[in-house]
Every structure is written in C-alpha cells, then in structure tokens.
C-alpha cells in the first residue's frame, strides 16, 4: 500500500536510471543514513552497552559488509568463485602496514585506498586462471592463492617488518587533529570513518554494476559464449571483476586491522574466514547489494548477540556460548537456504513485491 510505483511517472530516462527511482526508496535510504549517522552515534543500540555496540557490532559489520560487497561483485555479479577472500583481506592489511611504514606521514585513508589498489593487482594475478577454468576447478585455483598468501604472511618477514611477534600492529594516526586509528583512537571516530567509506564504496559499486562494465560481468556470469559473440572480451571482463572485487576486499582487510582489531596475525586471514565471507554472500543473496548488507549483518551479529545474551542474562561460560553460537549459526544457514535459496535479498524482494499490491492478494 505504501510502496508502489503506481503514479510515479518518469518523463526522462535519466530519472528512471537513477539509483532510487521510487520516492519510497529515497525516503527509506535517507532514514537509514540518519539512523547510521545520527541515531546510533548518540544513542547506540537500545539495551546494549555503547562500547560493545561500536566495537563488537557496528564497526565489524560495516567492515565485513565491504568484504561481502567485494566478494559479491566477483561471485554474484561476475560468476567467478573465489575462496581466497581471507588471504586477499590479508594482502590489504599487510600492504597497508607496509605503506604506513614506508610513508609514515601519509594520511591513513590514502594508505587504506592504496592498499586496496595493491590487493586489486594481486587479485588480478590470481584471477588469471579464471580465463581458462571455471567452477570447481577455479575454487581450487583460488584456494591455492589462499594457501600461498598465508605462507607469504608467515615466511616473508619483510611484510611484518621483521618484528618478533610475527604480526602487524597499528600505531596512533592522526587526521585533522583527531586520533583516528591505533590504540588511543576513539571508537566513535573509527565508526564514522568506516561508515563513510562503506557508504562511498556502496555507491560506487552500485554505479559500476548498473553500467556498461557491470553488465559485461553479468553477461559473462549468465552465458559466457553469448557474451563473447556480443563483443565482451572475457579477459577484460573477468580480470576487471577480480580487480574491482579485490579492491573492496583489500580495503576491508586494511580497515579490519587498523580501524577495528588494532593488530592482527596470519590467523585473522585464514581459510575459515574465507568460508565465513562466502556464507555472508550466499545467505545475503548472490548478486544483490542489499543482500551483502543483510548477509554480513546476520552472520556476524547472531553469534555475537548469542554470546552476549548467554553471558549476561544466563551467566553461561563464554566457551560454551562460543560453541552454541556456532551451532545456532549453522542451523540458521541451513534453514534460510531451505526456505529461500536465493538468500535474504530475495526475501526482501518478495516482501517489496507483496507490498506493491497490499492489501490485495493479486
């Protein structure tokens, strides 16, 4: 009843090609932005401690949404599967660390973006097998990338500046007189930076996807032979997808270490993390930007909330809750995939479709 395109006439193609052609969508996105930028920083999430909200929920969810967006571009839009996501995040983190060591005075945001570019190049190199192989075989090839990069993070001591711990660690970084990263930074500052990057990256991704390049990815995904006969060069399309996707994943890796964890070792980038990101994409919905948000939020928040509730309300041991949350997440994944194999995004799509006709059944 409240959500329908009836009566919303467009007289220019430009209006129809806008990001949110419907007035309801525009209002909705503005409300979401106000909540994210004003409501949560002031009030937090009702019922949860503020530090916990920021450090354990909002910042990681935003960072993992960037990861999921990146993986979704590759998997959902370009149809190329990758299990190297964890390692590519590592490439972003380690390269950001190196860039910060080499240019100590460089603005940290620029460091993060540069590390995204480095990851894009690495992703492109490991995307080369996709030109010849597809499906399961490509999974194996990207798995090789995962193991090779993990090995490099341990064995190439140059990457972590030959320190004894073998990990990388953020130092205090200032921007406009504020400490934005490192042990003394304020959670709220980091929240705003991560949120702003997320909004920007989402906007860029949705633009690319709706344009010529995004269409060339989807053409390769849906029918690669027809795509080639229409004039898409598989080399360009596939490698640009790998590069763009890795750019996002690299940025999220750098953000994870320098805006959330503060320090990281190779374990933060191992293959089990790759699987978690894959879960996020599949549960959220392949080929959907909204789905990337929902998938990352669900897969991250449910275990955290279960742990927190179990600890504070029922007083269970943290270790028990850890296992319980894994069980619960596993069950949730199975149930969601049975109910709606196309992920949460499709459920949302169906809801919107129903709302168009509500209260009438058809």
């Amino acid at each position, binding site marked *: 009843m409240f959500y329908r395109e009836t009566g919303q006439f467009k007289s220019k193609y430009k209006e129809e090609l806008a990001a949110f052609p419907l007035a309801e969508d525009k209002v909705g996105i503005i409300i979401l932005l106000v909540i994210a930028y004003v409501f949560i920083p002031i009030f937090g999430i009702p019922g949860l401690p503020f530090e916990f909200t920021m450090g354990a929920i909002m910042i990681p969810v935003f960072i993992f949404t960037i990861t999921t967006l990146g993986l979704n571009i590759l998997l959902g839009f370009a149809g190329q599967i990758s299990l190297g996501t964890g390692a590519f995040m590592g490439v972003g983190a380690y390269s950001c660390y190196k860039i910060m060591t080499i240019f100590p005075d460089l603005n940290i945001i620029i460091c993060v973006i540069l590390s995204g570019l480095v990851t894009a190049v690495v992703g492109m190199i490991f995307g080369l097998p996709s030109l010849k192989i597809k499906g399961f075989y490509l999974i194996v090839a990207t798995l090789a990338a995962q193991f090779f990069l993990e090995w490099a993070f341990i064995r190439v001591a140059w990457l972590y500046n030959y320190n004894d711990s073998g990990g990388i660690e953020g130092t205090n970084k200032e921007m406009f007189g504020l400490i934005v990263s490192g042990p003394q930074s304020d959670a709220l500052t980091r929240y705003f930076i991560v949120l702003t990057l997320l909004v920007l990256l989402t906007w860029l991704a949705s633009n690319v996807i709706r344009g010529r390049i995004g269409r060339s990815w*989807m053409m390769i995904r849906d029918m690669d032979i027809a795509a080639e006969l229409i004039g898409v060069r598989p080399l360009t399309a596939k490698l640009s997808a790998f590069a763009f996707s890795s750019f996002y994943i690299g940025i999220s890796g750098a953000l994870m270490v320098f805006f959330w964890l503060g320090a990281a070792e190779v374990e933060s980038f191992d293959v089990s993390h790759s699987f978690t990101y894959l879960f996020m994409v599949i549960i959220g919905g392949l080929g959907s930007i909204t789905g990337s948000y929902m998938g990352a939020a669900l897969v991250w928040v449910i275990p955290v909330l279960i742990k927190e509730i179990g600890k504070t309300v029922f007083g269970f041991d943290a270790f028990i809750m850890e296992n319980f949350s894994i069980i619960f997440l596993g069950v949730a994944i199975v149930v969601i995939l049975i109910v709606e194999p196309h992920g949460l995004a499709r459920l949302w799509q169906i809801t919107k479709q129903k709302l168009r006709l509500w209260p009438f059944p058809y």
Partner: protein
Amino acid sequence: MSEKNSVIMEVKNINLRFGGVIAIQDVSFNIFEGEIRAIIGPNGAGKSSMLNVINGFYHPQEGEVWFNGEKRPSMEPYQIAKTGIARTFQNIALFKGMTTIENVMTGRQLKMNKNFFWQMLRYGPAIDEEVQHRRRCEEIIDFLEINHIRKTPVGSLPYGLQKRVELARALAMDPKILLLDEPMAGMNVEEKQDMSRFIIDVNEEFGTTIALIEHDMAVVMDLADRVVVLDYGKLLADGTPAEVQSNQAVIDAYLGVPH
C-alpha cells in the same frame, strides 16, 4: 531490398573438420547487401557450423571469409562482433539473470566506451551515454512489441517471447548482418507468423542483411530472397526459392532416394 547485387559477405571454399568428422566441405556462397538469405538442409548438414564460422566461433581449417569486400583475417568472436555481425542462437542464449531491457542493453555494449572512472561515478559522460543507448533500445523494444515485459527477468518469460528478446538483443547491436539460427524452432503457427513479420520488418525498415537457418520450408520459401542448401557438409544447391524447390538433388536429399 535495395541494391540487390552488392556482395556484403562471401565465404569461399570453407573446410571445417573436427578431428575425423568433416562438418563443412568446400562450401562457397555469398550474401548480397539487404537480402534475406536462408540456409537450409537436413539435420547435421553443417548449417549451424556455417554460422559459427561466419561469426568466428569456429576457425575453419581452409577457406576464406570476405566481408565488406575485404578478406577477413582470423579473429576472435568479440572482434568479429565489432565488425557488425550479430546472431541469435538455436537454443536461446539470453542472460537469464537480467531483465528484458538489460538484455537488450547488452547489445549496445560495443557502442559504449566510457571508462571505469566515469562508470564508477555514473555521472556526466557515463550517464549521457547510458541514456542515449537506452533510447535506441526502447525503440527496438517498441518495434518488436515487447514493451510489456521490459522489466521482467527473461528467465521467467515464455519461449516465444524469449526468442523475440534475443532478436531484440541482436538488433540492438545495429548489425550489418544478422544471423538467425532457427528463429522459429518450437513455435506454434501464430508465433511463427509474428516472427516472420518481424524478420521482414527488420529487413525492410532497418535494411539489415539477414542470414537465417530454418526448417519450416513454407516459411523459408516465403521469406528468403535466395536459399543455400547444405547436405552432409556439402553445398547442394544455391538459388532463388523457386529454383531450389525444383532442384532434383534437393528433392532427393529431403525426400530420400532409393539406393
């Protein structure tokens, strides 16, 4: 149907083999600008292989393809698409995850060239380009009478409409030559009539040269200006529908002769 006599495409002595299987054997024919050229023949005669040779998906072992008066060097399919050859497929090859309008827009892919930077901002040149091509696509959608399914995902469309969307996508490339691989396979009489009408309209209004493979002889004889008959990879006959119909070798191939 103007300028019947300028040759736009010519294949000369094409030989195509897959291992020991000879798919096409020494076939030559030409296509005039603006005509409807039918390629017919029994199953396995090499018709689809011929189209695949023309749009570069197969590379023949011997033979030459002349296009626009020049001998075409060996090219990849995406390069050949650039020269202005579009095709539809025997088994529908639409992009199933995309809507009708998106599918048609993919046909404009080669005509769009704004770089990644503008694409990311979707502002200025990129959006202008998008709007300009969208307009052309809407014209084609209008022309083929598929307005009502503009925003439907093509996977959920009925067969006949999918074929029409595929034709729209090929037309969106503004091709010089349009290759249609069995555009009417599996259609009922009404759908065939519609499709025939669209093919004639495309030919007359856009002046597009059309090469089509079809099994329905009534349709072929009505539509085509000239017909090539292939059988077992060899050229059997070449001429107007009337000539081909009265050719004894063709009748033998289709009806069979006692050995």
